[in-house]
Structures are given as C-alpha cells and as structure tokens.
C-alpha cells in the first residue's frame, strides 16, 4: 500500500462525529402519507383552515407528479409510505424561555456544539433550533422584537402573524413547483419564519439548526424570510443527523423575499450524515431554495458549504426581478466515499441592469460523484444584464467523477455572460513544492484545498467559517489520489 493510499485509508475511516442519537419521548404520526396524515399534522399545529386547504392542494398535485430523474445521481427508489412525516419531541406545553425547555434537548444542542444558553450570552447569534421537523427553541426573541423583527418558528408565525404567512407562503416556491417542493408543502411540520421590517438592519446573525433524531423520519421544514424595503439580514443554517443504516429523506423549502433595497445573505453549512464508507445509510437531501429580488437594488446572496448527505439535489436560485438587483451564489461541495452531489444554481435575470455571480468549487474524493448544474437565463427585457460564472472541480482519486452541466440562455443583446470551468487534480508539483519547504503531505493537501475553496469560505460569516474550515479539513485532509 503506497503512502497515498494509507492516508486515503486513514481519512476514509474517519467517523462522522455527529452520529449519535438521543432518546426523548417523541410525539409521532403513523408511517406513510395520505390526506388523513396531512389533516393530523395540520390539527396538531392548530392551523387555520386556509393552510390545511393549501396543504391538501399540494398533496393532490404531488400525487399527480413523478419523481424527477434528470439529476446525475443514483439511489434506490424511495418508499414514501415508509416514512414518518411527523415526529416531535414531546413537551407538555410550549416553553416561554430557555429555562423551560427540556434539559435533554438542551444537552442535545450542547453536544452539537451549539449551546443555546451560551450562544445567547456570548456570541449574540439568535438561534432557532429544529429537531425532527419541530422548532424547539428560539433565542433572542425579545431583543429582536424591540426592532420589530419577527424571528420565530413557522408554527408560531402561523398563529401569531397569519396575514404575513398567508401573503408570502408559496410566493417564491409555489406548492406545485416540483416534486419535492410539493411534498414539503403538503407535510411540512415546522421551520423558521423571519420578517425584517422596513429600514431595519438586523443587528445579529439569525441562525437555524436542523437535526433529524428519530428513525424512519423525514424532515420537511420550511423557511420563509421576508426582508422589507431597505432592510438587511444575514441568516445561517446548519444541520446534522444521527448515524443510521437506512436512508432518511430531507426535503426542505427555503423561500426568500427581498423588497426594494433589501439585502439577504443566506449561508448554509450542510453536514447531514453522509452514510458510512460503503455507502450505506445517509440522508437524501432534496432541497428547494429560491429567493426573489422583487424590488429595485435588492440583493440575495447564497453561500453554501456542502459536506454531508448521501445524495444531494439542491439548487439555491435567484429570480432577479427588480431593476439593478443582484444575486450571488458561492458554493463548496465536497463528496467522499459513495456520496453523490448534484448541486448548482439558477439565476433568472428579468429586470434591467441585473447582476449575478456564481462561484462553485467541487471537490470529489473516494468513489463519489460531484456535479455542478446551473442555469443563467437572461430574459428579453433584461437590459445590460451581467453574469460571471466559475466552476472549478478538484479530483482526488481515480474512482470519483466531476461533472459540469451549465445552461446559458441569452435572449438580450446587451447582456454579458461569461462562464468558465476547469477540472484538475492536486498537482504533484504543488505538493512537491510544499514538501520541499518542510510542509508534510497532509498539511500540503489541506493548504491547497483550503486555498481552492477560499473564495467561497471568505463569504461565510465568521462563526460559520471556522466550522466550515474544520469540516473541510476533516473531510479531505491527506486524500491525495
């Protein structure tokens, strides 16, 4: 066995560190999906009639749709009747503040490295934690509400701000958008809701932490962010799941609405359980994320670091409707072992002088497959639209693959669209250069990979950048092909 192989071996045997599960009493729906389950979820949440109607409409549409087969991923068929669509940690009544939250739950979050208490006191990040689809705790609510910012769980928003939810729910990702969005619309159990009023600059990072705990459970959460005129918010999302042999489905929807002059920054560090080194188990991450720059000069920026999931199918997109609006997409996707990722973005330019920028870095190791799939569409009325896309792939090992599927559709002659992509491996000369200067091989690879991903890492908020860099190092150190 050569040294390279040894290092590769070492790193592939590295275990997923969030792979534990906690037993707390859970309130569960029976397995499977039908209209009764949807009524059950809706009743559990004490939802108004219109929302139930909306769910049923989505369910009806979902039953008529077929699962998409175009992504460049392979996985065994999902048994939608074998999934539990609702599972909530049992609580007697809703906690008013953190002290009333089940201590077992709080411990869970401490193990995840996000102590809700600590977060509250030290870092000043407002956290909404979601376990098995139900939001369990939201910090900093009061501080935020002084500014008029609403940051709460989705079910709370339905109860307390029905007019806002009704207005914006499904406005960016309609219930019939695609197969998994329809499924989510039918059965979503909770999520986060965030509303930034006119002219308010959110003073802290808002954060949601997702955790799948129970077995056979799908997680279907929905995030809705509304930024009114001239407001600003930076939003973080993180996720983990326990190590289980069977695959679990995560089909979330994120909708962002940005009004005139508003700016929304959405960052994700996705670290769902990727399955073991033989490709057994892991999360199917089929997520629909979309933002609309509705007003003039608005801006939406997606940043994602994807290290987890057995199969990822995710295209955070921007609809650039307002004049002078801009969209950004920064992504690092790392796949190892038998992971498969088909990810990218869509930039739909509708308004005049709209700008978009795409930077996607794919790193594949082991036997994994990593695809970039993106679309830049300049519509006829989008005068002076500008796009720059760059997607680079780094291959480590000769059994993995890197693929690029960019679609560039231009219907306006004043548009400037550029796309470039490269695929390469870590150069022997680069490693040699580092080793000559006394940097060992493993550190050299880490150095090169970090340099490769730096452009994206720089876009992450500080709290996340540290975690992301750690994750990247953990996933890839020393895996020279």
């Amino acid at each position, binding site marked *: 066995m050569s040294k390279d192989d040894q290092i590769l071996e070492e790193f592939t045997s590295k275990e997923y560190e969030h792979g534990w599960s906690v037993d707390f009493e859970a309130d569960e729906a029976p397995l499977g999906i039908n209209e009764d389950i949807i009524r059950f979820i809706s009743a559990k949440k004490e939802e108004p009639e219109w929302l139930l109607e909306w769910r049923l409409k989505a369910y009806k549409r979902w039953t008529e749709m077929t699962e998409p087969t175009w992504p460049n991923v392979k996985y065994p068929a999902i048994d939608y009747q074998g999934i539990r669509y609702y599972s909530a940690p049992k609580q007697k009544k809703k906690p008013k503040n953190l002290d009333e939250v089940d201590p077992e739950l709080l411990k869970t979050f401490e193990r995840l490295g996000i102590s809700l208490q600590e977060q509250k006191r030290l870092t000043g990040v407002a956290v909404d934690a979601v376990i098995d689809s139900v939001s369990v705790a939201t910090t900093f609510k009061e501080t935020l509400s002084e500014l008029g910012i609403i940051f709460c769980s989705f079910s709370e928003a339905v109860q307390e701000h029905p007019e806002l939810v009704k207005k914006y729910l499904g406005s960016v990702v309609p219930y019939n958008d695609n197969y998994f969005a329809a499924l989510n619309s039918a059965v979503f159990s909770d999520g986060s809701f965030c509303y930034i009023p006119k002219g308010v600059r959110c003073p802290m990072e808002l954060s949601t932490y997702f955790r799948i705990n129970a077995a056979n459970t799908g997680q279907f959460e929905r995030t809705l962010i509304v930024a009114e005129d001239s407001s600003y918010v930076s939003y973080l999302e993180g996720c983990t799941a326990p190590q289980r042999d069977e695959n679990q489905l995560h089909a979330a929807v994120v909708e962002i609405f940005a009004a005139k002059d508003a700016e929304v920054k959405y960052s994700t560090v996705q670290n769902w359980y990727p399955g073991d080194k033989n490709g057994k188990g892991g999360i199917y991450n089929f997520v629909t994320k979309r933002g609309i720059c509705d007003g003039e000069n608005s801006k939406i920026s997606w940043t994602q670091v994807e290290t987890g999931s057995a199969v990822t199918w995710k295209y955070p997109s921007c609809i650039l409707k307002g004049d002078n609006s801009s969209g950004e997409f920064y992504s690092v996707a790392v796949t190892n072992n038998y992971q498969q990722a088909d990810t990218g973005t869509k930039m739909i330019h509708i308004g005049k002088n709209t700008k978009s920028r795409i930077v996607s870095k794919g790193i594949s190791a082991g036997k994994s497959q990593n695809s970039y799939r993106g679309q830049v569409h300049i519509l006829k009325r989008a005068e002076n639209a500008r796009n720059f896309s760059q997607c680079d792939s780094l291959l480590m090992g*000769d059994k993995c693959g890197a693929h*690029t599927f960019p679609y560039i559709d*231009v219907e306006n002659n004043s548009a*400037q669209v550029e*796309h470039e*992509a490269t695929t390469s491996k870590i150069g022997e000369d680069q490693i040699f250069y580092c080793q000559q200067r006394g940097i060992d091989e493993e550190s050299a690879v880490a150095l090169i990979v970090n340099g490769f991903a730096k452009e994206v890492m720089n876009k992450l908020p500080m709290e996340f950048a540290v975690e992301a860099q750690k994750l990247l190092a953990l996933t890839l150190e020393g895996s020279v092909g």
Partner: protein
Amino acid sequence: MEVVDRNTEEFLINHYSRLLETDPLNGLRSAARESFLKLGFPAKKQEAYKYTPIKRVIEKNFDFAELSVPVTSWTKEACQQKFYANSEANHLVFINGLYNQEFSVIKSPSSDLVIETIDNRSYENVADLKKYLGALTKDKQDAFALLNLATFSQGLFLHSLKNKDNLPTYIYHFNDAASSAISTPRVLTLVETGSRLRVYEKTFRNGEANHLTNSIVEADVKSNGELRWTKLQNQTMADYAIEGFYGIQERDSRIYTNTFSFKTALTRNNLYLSLDGENCETHMHGLYHLNQTSHVDNYTSVDHTEPNSFSNELYKGIVDEKAHAVFNGKIYVRPQAQKTNAFQSNNNIILSDDAKVNTKPQLEIWADDVKCSHGCTTGQLDEEAIFYLRSRGISKTNTKALMLNAFAAETVQEVQDDLIREEVENLILNKLGV
C-alpha cells in the same frame, strides 16, 4: 383510401420501403427501421433536442404523405459549373442525396483512394460493408441516424488506402425542391494507417419548396491517419438539415472538423467523436453567422476512452435579427483516460434584441489526472473598441465588419483550402454589408 391515422414516422418509412425491398443491406436496414419507429422523432422534452423543437418544425413544414421522388433538373454541365476551380482534385456529386458517379470528376488513382457507390460495392462484399455501416451510430440511438440507415440509397464509400496523401475531395449536394422533398445522403469514410484525406462539403438547390436533408458521415480513422472535414452550410430559408458526423480514431490519429453555418431555416449538426486510442488529436472548429430566423444547433460530443489524448473545440457565433443559435458541447473522459487534455470554448456575439443564444458546455469527468477546461461567453461588441475605431474616422459599417471579422478569424483560418477559405471570408463580409 388508406387510413390517414398513421403518424409521420410511419409515413416516412413506408415511403421508402417500396424502394428498398430488393436491397442486399435489408437486414441492417430493417433493424434500424424498427428502432426508428420505436424511438420516433425527438420530442421537445428530450434533453439533447431541448432548444430545437425539431419534431414540430418537421411536421409543420413537411407533409410526408405527399412526398415524391424528385425527377432531377440538374444536368451534368449545370453541376460541373458549380465546381471549385481546382483541377487537381476529386469533385463528387450527390443528386438529391444519391451519389452520382457519372457527374463526378475523379482524379485520384484507385490505388490511392477508392471511391465507390455503397450499393455497387455492397453486391460484391456485403459482409465488409456491414462491419462499418452504422457501426458508429449504433449506440447513439439518434432517430435521424437510424432513419438515414433505414432509408438511404446510393451512399458514397471513400476508402483512403495505406500511407497515401490524397488530393482534396469536394462533395457537392445538388437538390431539387420543386415540391417538398427529403434527401438522405450517406458517406462512409475509411482512412487507413498513415494516410491523409481532406474533404469539403457544400450544398446547392433548384426550386423554392421546403427541403429536408438528413445526412450522415461515418469516419473511421486508423492509426496515424489524418482526416479533415469541412462543411459549408449556406442555403436558403427553405432548407432544413440534420447533419450527423460520427468519427472514431485509432492511436496517433488526427481528425479536424470545420463547420461553417450561414443561411438555413434550421440546421442541426450532430458531431460525435470517439478518441479510441492513445495520443489522438481532435480539433473541432465552428462558426455560425446567422440572421433572419435561422436556427442552428451544434451538438458535439467528444468521448475520451484512452489515455494521453488531446481534444480542442472552438465554436464562435454571430447572431443577428431573429436568429437562434444553440451550442451543446460535451466532453466525456472515461476512468481509464488519464492524462487527457481537453479544451472547449464557445463565444457568441448577439447583435439584435430578438436574437437568442442557448449554450450548454458540459464536462463529465471520471478520471482524476486530467486537464479539462471550458469557457463560454455571450456578449456584444466592445463599445470602447468601437469608439476607438470610429474616432479614427472608420465608418460604422466598417468598424463592425472589422471587429466581427477579427472575431471570426480564429475559426476561418483553420481552413487549409484557399478556395473555401476565401469563400467563407467573402460570405462573412457580404453578410456584414461590406
């Protein structure tokens, strides 16, 4: 009266089945016929034809129930007048998709280059032909390639023998479009070890009706062979064409393709190249300069199956008025094709508000020690450059012409034949109104 309830595909096949009943290649054809009927013309949903609604266009413009076998109005003299002024060359004539040896002028000795009608040859040596005919199109399952195999007759067989440097070969297609018609030319090219062949293709027509061409070129280049293939597509707004080029290369061989598209109602170029040996080299160059409502779709696929090969692709486009250009480039690097070097580039200039460009440069890479990159741009002429030239007293038209000519030059200069290169240069200038 027969039932009119049958679909387009069946009409087409039936139209030809009467002609081909006595054909010795019937076994080969009937398999293709079955596959074609099963597949049908590609519908819009099909990824490979996403931006070219070819089924709809064909069905709208052609009534296959009314197809006739055209009686040609082309005479030998009329054809030969159109020949390029090159006496040291082979000039080969297709009339309505059928190779016509009588009208052709052949200068190459048959000890260098064998030029035969596929039918004639097939009577003597069917087994040999069967080995090559349809071999490259087989696994692609393209409806048009299948249709061509099922319905072509009098194809052309070009066989360049070992270690020969051949005279340039011009292929001319003369079509009759007095009423709407379809032609199905087929060329099978075999370039033996160490030999070199250059082919140039061009099309003419008589008549005003809609005409559909469904052509296939199959090229098998053996080790250290070289093939250059240039297509000049400048027809009318009543011409619809699906042109397939399927090539396979043995080790150390080279293929160069040049595709120039100017006027057409709809042209779809399917270019499939398989680099099936070490140290192969492939260069694909294309230029499309479109206006009116022309629609050109270049679909290219390069398959690296062995190590140490090199492929280079450059397509440039100038799209004006209501034209629509589509580019789909695919580079496929198989796991064993280490040390592959692959480049792909597609640049477009859009000159009008109604023009449209869809481009999809695609990389699928399964080997790690490779250098692959692609780039594509869509934009317009640089305003600063325009200002620079205008401020030096150069007229608006000339400025535009100068810049677009420079833009296109990279692809035009790839043509080795002076006559063709000059013609392409003139076509570009004419189009720019200079």
